[in-house]
């Protein structure tokens, strides 16, 4: 077969077919269009302003590794004026997170960015290994998800950053849309497609890879020979997400635009006001100061259950009742350090678009 010529530069040999457009392009044109599309996503959503301190949530996996590389590249090429940091959470999973953190430490050298690693152990006094040893492999992902979310915010506050960017890609978002549809979770359905979430007292989070296909992220990592870690978490087969993913991949094989189409469907689901009203108003956890929808935040409830030997206290109604029946929390209960947002984040400044040099 004669080599195909790149549809963009008409000079070099085409090396891949873009899933979004079907275009056949060469390696250099691919790097350029991939990076430019992420830049367009960033500028159209006005994600950053000059001087922002931005943490990249780094797991050592492909998405966050490519994100760190692309953020560094774009920050230099278009002079965003951002201070970039790597922020990693160490869940304390032997043979999984310890290996992937080695990858992040290499990324720190390769990309020359400051790295902060915050562990569940130092924050909560429990590693995931210890939690699984105590409660088994049921509900462990609930603990991990709640603990990670809060750990990222706390790590960001320690770095005094304005903003966390994560490597969630178009496939991840489409998958979450499908899962929310299957669960009938209407309030999450609209929200999960937002490129940027920012509550009144939360640190801004955004997804610059919202429109980037996983295939292109993996191809980018492969062609750039980026150093990433790829193993499933040993505690999380997450069968449900696995099925959603396999289904999505089958759809994509039949029609590559399926991924973007599903994201657009999610976006079209406007969350009605009465649905929103049913959710508890945000308040601050009386024990640790983190945002909460009840008196205690989810992490404090889960931690109290762990400490008092009622692991499902934060998970089921029955567990909660059991905990309450035991009386109030003892004074010497282990708690999470008090949470404070970095001071300059409280006088919110309006976002302005990052200008590309002309």
């Amino acid at each position, binding site marked *: 077969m004669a080599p*195909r010529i790149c549809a963009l530069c008409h000079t070099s040999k085409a090396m*891949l*077919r873009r899933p979004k457009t079907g275009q056949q392009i060469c390696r250099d044109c691919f790097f350029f269009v991939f990076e430019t599309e992420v830049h367009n996503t960033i500028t159209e959503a006005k994600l950053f302003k000059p001087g922002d301190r931005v943490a990249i949530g780094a797991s050592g996996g*492909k998405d966050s590794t490519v994100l760190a590389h692309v953020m560094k590249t774009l920050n230099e090429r278009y002079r965003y004026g951002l201070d970039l940091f790597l922020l990693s959470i160490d869940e304390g999973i032997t043979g999984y997170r310890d290996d992937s953190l080695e990858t992040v430490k290499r990324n720190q050298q390769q990309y020359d960015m400051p790295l902060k690693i915050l562990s569940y152990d130092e924050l909560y006094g429990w590693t995931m290994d210890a939690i699984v040893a105590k409660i088994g492999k049921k509900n462990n992902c609930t603990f991990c998800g709640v603990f990670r979310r809060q750990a990222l915010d706390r790590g960001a506050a320690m770095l005094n950053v304005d903003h966390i960017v994560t490597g*969630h890609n178009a496939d991840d978002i489409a998958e979450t849309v499908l899962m929310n549809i299957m669960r009938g979770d209407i309030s999450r359905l609209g929200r999960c497609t937002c490129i940027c979430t920012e509550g009144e007292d939360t640190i801004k989070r955004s997804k610059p890879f919202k429109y980037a296909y996983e295939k292109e992220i993996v191809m980018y990592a*492969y062609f750039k020979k980026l150093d990433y870690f*790829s193993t499933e978490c040993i505690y999380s087969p997450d069968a449900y997400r696995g099925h959603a993913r*396999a289904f999505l991949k089958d759809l994509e094989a039949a029609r590559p635009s399926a991924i973007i189409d599903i994201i657009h469907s999610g976006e079209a689901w406007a969350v009605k006001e009465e649905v929103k009203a049913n959710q508890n108003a945000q308040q601050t956890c009386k024990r640790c100061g983190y945002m909460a929808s009840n008196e205690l935040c989810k992490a404090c409830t889960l931690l109290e259950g762990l400490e008092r030997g009622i692991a499902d206290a934060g998970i089921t109604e029955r567990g909660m009742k059991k905990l309450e029946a035991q009386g109030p929390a003892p004074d010497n209960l282990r708690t999470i350090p008090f949470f404070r947002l970095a001071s300059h984040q409280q006088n919110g400044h309006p976002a302005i678009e990052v200008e590309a040099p002309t």
Partner: protein
Amino acid sequence: MMSSPKTIALKIEFGGGMELLFANQRSHKLSIPARVPVDNSTKELQAEPDSSNTKPTDIVFLIHYLRDHLLKEREELFIENGTVRPGILVLINDTDWELEGEGDYKLQDGDEIVFISTLHGG
């Protein structure tokens, strides 16, 4: 002595977690017959060359060969409906296999084939 069937040498690379199914070894060198059964059976590779039930060896055959001879576990994570499972990228000499005819690509001596899983954690 019978002349052995003509073979071609290939370099195989696994990445993105794919290697976990192949004894955690990323790089493999192998040699497979230049002509193979049309039904992709890898059991009797002594099929007479040029007989009507053989074809030049291609990627689909390679996928079956890898499953039967190199794969150590969980074949459903590698092969589905006679080809690689959706979500596995294949590169032929560093080019997306979608530009090379996918499974029908006729393997050449010295080709380097890469399989990368996109399904492993971000």
